[in-house]
């Protein structure tokens, strides 16, 4: 069952044909439920732009993005935001955390925005697993880059969303921690049947994925546009 369906996605900047920047140049892609897809590409290739489109952060110039049967850009701003809140977990490359909230408040932010109950047991598990117990009342300003990244990951897992979109989530982490975080992500995603789309330039991490998609100049250059069979444990 495809959870993500991208059809002819284009993102162009600028009106003048000579100076137009084609961030995404006609991309079509399908991702199955529960898949772990890695997106690789050189910088400026458009991978971040693609990820943003998947989460409805930015509007395309052309094209459709359908997530779990919902056409993203046909939804109103209000509904799109609520969709993101409930169904998507974001990990950005930088500037992930709301500076005026503590670590714990940051992690529970999407839950609280939805007025939902906080599953303390589950959250404690995640916080423990990411090694953040001692920092939960600190402000983001007092954390290192790596710690902030981990908090972002905790937040992305907090609502057990259907999709996790991560842009270089292990960029600030050392290799050992990177491995651990990835394993945690994979475990969680299997348990809760989550789909992961992750941008990375780290080959070993990309290998952990079910599928690797390579993007260059706004186009997919390798990696199937459609998934290759069921996942093998």
């Amino acid at each position: 069952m495809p959870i993500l369906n991208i059809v002819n996605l284009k993102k162009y900047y600028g009106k003048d044909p000579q100076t137009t920047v084609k961030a995404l140049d006609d991309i079509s892609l399908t991702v199955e439920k529960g898949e772990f897809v890695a997106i690789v590409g050189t910088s400026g290739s458009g991978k971040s732009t693609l990820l943003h489109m998947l989460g409805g952060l930015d509007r395309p110039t052309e094209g459709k993005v359908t997530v779990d049967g919902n056409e993203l850009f046909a939804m109103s701003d209000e509904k799109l935001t609520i969709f993101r809140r409930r169904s998507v977990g974001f990990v950005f490359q930088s500037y992930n955390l709301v500076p005026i909230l503590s670590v714990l408040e940051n992690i529970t932010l999407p839950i609280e925005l939805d007025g939902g109950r906080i599953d303390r047991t589950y959250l404690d598990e995640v916080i423990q697993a990411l090694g953040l117990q001692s920092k939960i009342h600190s402000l983001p300003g007092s954390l290192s880059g790596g710690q902030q990244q981990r908090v972002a990951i905790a937040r992305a897992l907090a609502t057990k969303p259907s999709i996790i979109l991560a842009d270089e989530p292990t960029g600030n982490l050392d290799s050992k921690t990177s491995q651990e975080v990835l394993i945690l992500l994979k475990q969680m995603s299997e348990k809760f049947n989550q789909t992961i789309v992750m941008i990375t330039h780290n080959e070993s991490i990309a290998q952990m994925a079910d599928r690797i998609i390579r993007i260059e100049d706004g186009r997919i250059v390798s990696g199937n546009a459609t998934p290759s069979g069921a996942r093998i444990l």
Partner: protein
Amino acid sequence: MIANNNRKIVTRLSLRSLRVSPLRNLAVISAVVLTTLLITSIFTMSLNLNKSMELTMMKSVGTDFHGSFKRVSPEQIEILQQHPSVKEYGVMLHAGLLRNEVFRDSPVEVKRIDEASARHSFIHLIEGGLPEAGNEVVLSTWVLDKFGIQHALGERVQLDIDITERVLKQEFVVSGYYEADKNLAIAGLAFVSDAWVQQNISGIDPAESEASGSYVNTQEMSVMFKNAVDIEKKLDKVLADTGVNRPTGVNWAYTTSSLSDNLIEFVPYVAVIFIIMLSGYLLIYNIFYISVVRDVKFYGLLKAIGTTPRQLKRMIRIQSQILYLIGLPFGLAAGYVIGRLLTPMMNTFSSEPMEAAYSASPWIFIGAALFAYLTVWLAAGKPGRMAARIAPVEAVRYTGVQTTRRRNKRSKRGGRLHVMAFTNLFRSKKKLSLMLTSLSLSIVLFSIIFTVIGSLDVNKYLSTFLSGDMVIRNEKIETHEGERPGDPYKLSEAFSSDLERIDGVKSVEKVYYYYDIHDMDEKIRAVLQPLSETEPPQPYLTSLLERNSVYLQLYGIDPGWYDLVQKDVIEGHFDPQKFASGDYVLVAQSLMWEEDTYTSYYHPGDIMEFKNLGKSYEVMAVMNYDALYAATTQSFSTYGFNAFFPSSELTGELPAETNPPWPLSATLHIDPDKLDSATQAAKSLAASSDELVVKSREDYREELDGFIGVFQIIGYGLSFVIALIGVLNYINTVVTGVIMRRNEFALLESIGMTKRQLKKMLVYEGIYNVLLTTAITSTLGVFLTYSIAKSIAGNTAFTVFRMSWLPFVLVVPVLAIIAYTVTLSSYRMLSKATLIERLRQGE
């Protein structure tokens, strides 16, 4: 169904956001305080004014009782007071009139009153209490003065009380006395005890005395209802319910002093409030706008995580409400205090002298709070909507590629900073014109007010009261109600010659006065008769028509006054030589009953017959009703008018029955070198007579300075506020502009422009702005200021138009400095990391 309970998180985000921007909070709170303060003070002042007017009215009437039942018997009083709508009542018994010689021309009524009546008649005893024994009496201070008695208890006074059938002469003891304004009430009052009434007039039948018109021993019962609405109806209802049938009276102070009658009076208030709200709105809007623009990344991130547009809007709204609540009490309190302090000054503007009364109505605060809230609500609305519409991708965008390219101007000379600056200016024509307009407007307004205030001229003002350097007036003539003892002829020929002989006195110009009971002729009738037929009938007019006369004031003026005639002429033309011949009269307009209505019965060329002068004159010109103000008694008779003749006409031959005119005043024109000595001499000459009062320019000037001072404070204050608002808006616009363009700046920096060059370009832009503004203000602005200020100054009695160049000169340097500093500091603020990045380390 069932809304999400996510209020807590939105509130938490709002509160935390507040905590990190103390400066912005302070700015908003200040704006709120300022707005609230201004609105509250306006409300306070207007309500105080209203109350003062009411109070003054009531003091004229003599009481603040709502209404009264006239000539009621004790039994009727008993019945009436039981009526449920009568909340309070007082009973006054008319005992008679004082016939003492001193009161020949100013009537004093003798009454017996109770405590309630005293209270409601503004009789506050300075010492003592109401009379109880048969020989006790309560008098007012001016009555005591007339008797020449000290203001003390126990003083003995002989009163001749006329009870119609006879005059009772009895010695009384002052049991109490109170302060009263002789001129405000129509008749003076003296109070005797019930014991005296029982002893002397209880035998008189009230019905008889009513029929005869003396009203001795009749009682009047005044009542207070729950409120002053429909007093007449209430009185009638009481009569109907109780079956009593007696005439009623309504306190006209209540019906004539409501503000709602003249809605036009409201317009300036509404305009001022609107301006205040507008400036408050602009300030607060700009502050929030900047705040949102600065924190775009923050809001973008919130949206990316799942904060809906509605929630973001609520964040801004909550912040604005909290800041409003913090600033509100200060604004209300300060505004009320200022309003109270300024009220006395406002009172001096009204034509009648008013006592200041203060209102502490909660509506002041409720109203001001509501208006202030409305301002804040509106001001935070748009920034809230802006925050709501921020694209979540802003969170991840750092410097970002320019998403909307505007028309790229390619010019060969491009790259030179000042040219870039110039082009930048015209990028958004709308924004540019808006800013220029608001700034120029502020400057123009400022200069107009400044000019007008600067044109305040004491001398001109003085010239309405005083044409020469000093004036000696015979006070006796001035007043009509109750007279001062004295000789109306004090300013005799002999006296004038003495004055002339004083060293330094150049000339003595006299004015003669005659109070003329003039028969109505067809011309006068033609105007008055139709007036009397309109509803409601005006009693005074009716009585005049019955008596077929109007009251005129005739003035004989010395040639020295002729120069001042022309400026007051409305119809016709003044020819001094012809006038001096004595066949002509100058007629002023008549004051009608309705305020500010003047008509002239006559027109140039008409012939008027003055029986009491034994001659007819041709009307040479018609003048303003208050023409030659300085020469007149400064009072005007309704339906009558002033008429001016050469002095010779009044001092010359007159019919036998006519009393000689009174010399009203002598105006001295003094050689400036001998001013002091001459003034001294004149003063000592006049000191010997009680009736003569000397006033020099200096005396008037002192009186005036206070008055002008008030004007200046308000005027300069207002212009300062306006200028401040204009400047603040300008600052806001500049800062906003800089912040909005930060992406552009980053781009420019990335393609090679150094920070120094960027700063220079911005400074150029600022300078161009200033130049453009100066261009507008120095042309259009000067023109507007000149024409508007001139017309204002020309029309007011005490201004001489003086163009003030100061504002225009100041504009350039002040604006330039502001532009320079603000531009640079906002740029510096940009380069320093934004709020968000400041809180982030180690990235």
